[in-house]
């Protein structure tokens, strides 16, 4: 059956309007739940960077746990000056958007965690590129602003079994106890070494075989992001 052009045009317009309206209603209805999921995931990520096993904890308790451990948060600029001191506001900062701004305008979050043993840890967000897409994570430093307390990494679509392993314990655990400043006080970051790091290397961890580009991406991410925090870290370290 041949339809007239008018019919076809009318048909497509009505169809598109119906679809658009129903999709909008559904998206608006589900948005709060989706945002809540993303918020909980961020809390989980921050907590797991201070070595709290969040995987076994039910989702509705993450909020309370986060309040218990993360006692405050500030956002600093690349000169190390505190810019935002309201923790709720700092939590809302998306590092992706900040990294697009010029260096001096960036608001860099620092989450301050009070641990069970009374120690304080400082959690810094990370964001970089892997092989196929973005990689991100959090790194927590001990009170000396030098020793790594813990890290967590996640990725969008690294190769399963290879680059995707950056989230696994065998890759993450060796970061603990490494230092990001050399004995002379110079910023060294952490190297991810192909073929394995020497046991006594204070700044190196093993790379993942078959995941070289992702490993390099994580290394660059740590170097770049901690680099932006250098002024903050240096000024607190010397206190």
């Amino acid at each position, binding site marked *: 059956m041949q339809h007239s052009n008018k019919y076809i045009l009318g048909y*497509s317009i009505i169809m598109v309007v119906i*679809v658009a309206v129903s999709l909008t209603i559904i998206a608006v209805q589900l948005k709060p739940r989706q945002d809540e999921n993303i918020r909980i995931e961020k809390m989980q990520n921050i907590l797991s960077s201070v070595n709290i096993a969040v995987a076994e904890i039910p989702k509705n308790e993450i909020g309370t746990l986060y309040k218990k451990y993360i006692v405050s948060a500030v956002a600093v600029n690349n000169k190390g000056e505190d810019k935002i001191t309201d923790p709720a506001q700092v939590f809302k900062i998306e590092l992706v958007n900040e990294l697009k701004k010029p260096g001096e305008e960036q608001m860099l979050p620092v989450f301050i965690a009070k641990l069970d043993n009374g120690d304080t840890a400082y959690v810094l967000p990370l964001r970089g590129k892997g092989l196929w897409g973005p990689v991100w994570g959090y790194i927590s430093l001990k009170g000396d602003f030098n020793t790594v307390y813990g890290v967590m990494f996640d990725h969008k679509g690294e190769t399963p079994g290879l680059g995707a392993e950056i989230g696994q314990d065998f890759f993450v655990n060796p970061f603990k106890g490494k230092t990001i400043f050399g004995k002379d006080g110079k910023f060294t970051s952490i190297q991810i070494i192909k073929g394995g790091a020497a046991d006594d290397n204070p700044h190196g961890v093993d790379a993942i075989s078959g995941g070289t580009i992702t490993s390099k991406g994580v290394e660059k991410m740590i170097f770049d992001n901690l680099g932006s925090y250098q002024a903050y870290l240096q000024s607190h370290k010397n206190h």
Partner: protein
Amino acid sequence: MSEKLKKVEKEPMFSSKVLKLLKNPFNLENPITVQVLGICSALAVTVQMKPAIVMALSVTIVTAFSNLIISSLRNTIPSRIRIIVQLVVVAALVIIVDQILKAYVYDVSKKLSVFVGLIITNCILMGRLEAYAMGNKPWPSFVDGFGNGLGYGLILVIVAFFRESLGSGKILGAKIIPQFMYDIGYMDNGLMILPPMALITIGIIIWVQRSKTPELQEK
């Protein structure tokens, strides 16, 4: 004419014809193993059982309802833009499924990532719409879509069962290989996690199925 109409109305909801629509995709007309459609997602989301099951359900819902909607509209759809109309219906359903997954099973939706969106391009869907829904009544079309979705899902779950159990020693996230097996040197087969082994697993399923069903053997 009126006699014919009556006859159609009398047809029970689950007549043998309709039941066949539901059953055929499991064996003789399986979308993956016989028609070799929807392979890309079958390779990608079968590393673990849970995402595979969610993917199977999503595809079943989308095929069933897109068949139903297109079949109800089939007499009004202008033939010159029929593919576009089909795509719009499928895309809308896929977006709805994706949004619901993001809201209710966030961790699974993260694992499925782009593959939910790629249901739109799943050949099974367009195949069923063009081949069946455009020329049949809504109810048989719905059953046809439902059956094909489940036929696809069945293969997905079988492949995921072998890949998860051999690749990570788990079923649905629970360990099935006792610790002492690891202690005496058993190792999970990391190759099972990679996509090539999914292809080989599907190949083995096709082989087993063909050798058991004479109808599928090519002379």
